[in-house]
């Protein structure tokens, strides 16, 4: 995963950017555009979550709450109080980041499964608040009438226009992640996952880094939430329940923890699958469960990485076993 990928990565990014520009022109079916928009939103969340899970090795089952906070903050502040939408997106990210800090700071001192429970518990509390503070949030029937985002006279009111909006953000989130991963901070995060004690003795303030990456991943989710709110113009607590938290974690795992593109791949694959199964909604839960279970049992490094590491292992084997016969 090193320097030779750097050049290839630039090529991939260029192709990716071209795809973003060209797809809405080539694809006319509105339904496909909508699905791709959902993939885009999920990609933003999953790429951020992957930094936490795949690189720093910390699990959160609470990211639905951050996604929801972004959505509700944008929705309520712009619709009810008339805040300007774009600054509110940033404000929502900051507020969500602060909430993440307060939850993350004590949680990340805890070991693995305690962290899982803390984030899960937190996200359930947030969801309950979404439902019960119905005066502000609209309660279980949801919050309608959210304004679209706009730049000057360009209003992002169609699926087509939102495609460009969402995917531009997704592109920059992926780019930022790639930058982070191949840097001092990225290595420090991987070091925390590799051996927290060793990382500490090499000068990495592991507690601070874990909290920071947690906050960062929450801010990514918040951004996606705001974009979602201004796109669909209607949100409800059901979009931000703990099933969503499990779904995004599944996307990280299936895509391969520790790979930025893997996160995008996982988000795409599972969003599409979810759409296919949406037709028969009652199959959604079991399908999610089965996929997560099977991937974890047989390809714990994720689908892409699992195959990649099989390839690597094959390569190393052919290096280590020299031909002895003469």
């Amino acid at each position, binding site marked *: 995963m090193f320097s030779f990928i750097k050049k290839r990565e630039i090529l991939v990014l260029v192709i990716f950017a071209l795809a973003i520009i060209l797809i809405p022109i080539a694809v006319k079916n509105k339904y496909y555009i909508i699905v791709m928009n959902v993939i885009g939103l999920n990609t933003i969340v999953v790429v951020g979550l992957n930094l936490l899970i795949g690189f720093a090795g910390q699990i959160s089952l609470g990211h639905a709450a951050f996604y929801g906070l972004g959505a509700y903050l944008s929705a309520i502040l712009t619709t009810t109080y008339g805040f300007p939408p774009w600054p509110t997106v940033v404000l929502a990210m900051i507020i969500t980041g602060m909430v993440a800090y307060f939850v993350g700071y004590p949680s990340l001192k805890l070991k693995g499964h305690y962290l899982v*429970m803390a984030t899960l518990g937190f996200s359930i509390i947030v969801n309950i608040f979404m439902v*019960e503070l119905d005066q502000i949030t609209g309660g279980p029937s949801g919050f309608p009438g959210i304004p679209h985002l706009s730049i000057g006279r360009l209003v992002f009111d169609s699926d087509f226009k939102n495609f460009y909006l969402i995917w531009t953000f997704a592109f920059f989130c992926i780019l930022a992640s790639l930058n982070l991963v191949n840097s001092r901070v990225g290595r420090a995060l991987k070091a925390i996952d590799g051996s927290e004690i060793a990382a500490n003795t090499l000068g990495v303030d592991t507690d601070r880094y874990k909290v920071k990456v947690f906050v960062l991943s929450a801010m990514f989710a918040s951004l996606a939430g705001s974009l979602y709110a201004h796109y669909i113009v209607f949100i409800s607590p059901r979009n931000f329940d703990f099933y969503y938290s499990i779904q995004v974690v599944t996307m990280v795992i299936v895509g391969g923890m520790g790979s930025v593109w893997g996160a995008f791949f996982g988000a795409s694959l599972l969003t599409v699958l979810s759409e296919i199964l949406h037709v028969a909604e*009652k199959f959604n*839960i*079991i399908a*999610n469960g*089965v996929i997560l279970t099977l991937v974890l049992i047989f390809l714990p490094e994720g689908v892409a990485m699992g195959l990649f590491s099989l390839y690597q292992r094959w390569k190393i084997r052919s290096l280590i076993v020299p031909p002895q016969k003469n």
Partner: protein
Amino acid sequence: MDFHEQIFQYIISGLTIGAIYALVALGYNIVHNATGIVNFVQGEFVTLGGMMMYTYYTLFEIPLLFSFFLSVATVTFIGGLIERGPIRVAKSKAIIILVFITIGLSSTIRGTALLVWGPDNMPIPSFSGEKVIHVMGAAILPQHLWIFAITIGVVIFLQYFFHRTLVGKAMRATAFNRKAASLVGVNVNYMILLSFAMSGSLGAIGGIIIAPITTTSYDTGIMLSLKGFSAAILGGYGNSTGAILGGLILGVLESLGAGLISSKFKNAIAFFILLLVLFFKPTGLLGHGEADRI
């Protein structure tokens, strides 16, 4: 009903649901002590217990006692199957992966339950009727008494099992030090299998005895499982007395909170308590500082 009687009523219903939390918490502890895994399927064991009971007792009209044992046996079997199957076969033995496998399995089971039984709530008749008993001004159902009695019975049995039988002691040995246990001849794999099976039994019993009061459905398990886990942490994770204490305290606090403060946020109470415990005293009330801080 005057104030004291109301409080007492809340306490009774709190203890009732608390008993279920306690059973779920005990189930978590058994698996965690033997394997280090948090078994998220625990909640589905509760669901399945109730659903099996519905199937055997209400649908097939098998007599109560047989239904009870059949249901427990079925879920115990499923618990063992989970260990023998997915857990054993998993390529990675990393604990966090196994924990996530249990999360995946729990979704799988829940999804299956949804397909098999549908989304509706299933009613189960009370074990011995609905005639209200009045104690100190509070109304108690016979089912409440069944819940207390059976829970106490289970706890006594577990005490006996873990401290007086060879198998139970072997399980404790495995939990304490797996290598040492295997060196003295304990079949560690069997102990792990047993721990999953037992957590199945405990979950099932919990689900069965509460079902007549709360009805049961495919997603009963989630909330119970999460709150049961909170109870385990509250009492001190890994500690059986803690599990019982945690369960009862959580149940009562939840009931009192819902009754006195606000019923809208009832579900949030358990998780607030969870977060408070995790943030300020992760070892819980009775925990022995299991290295939960890195």
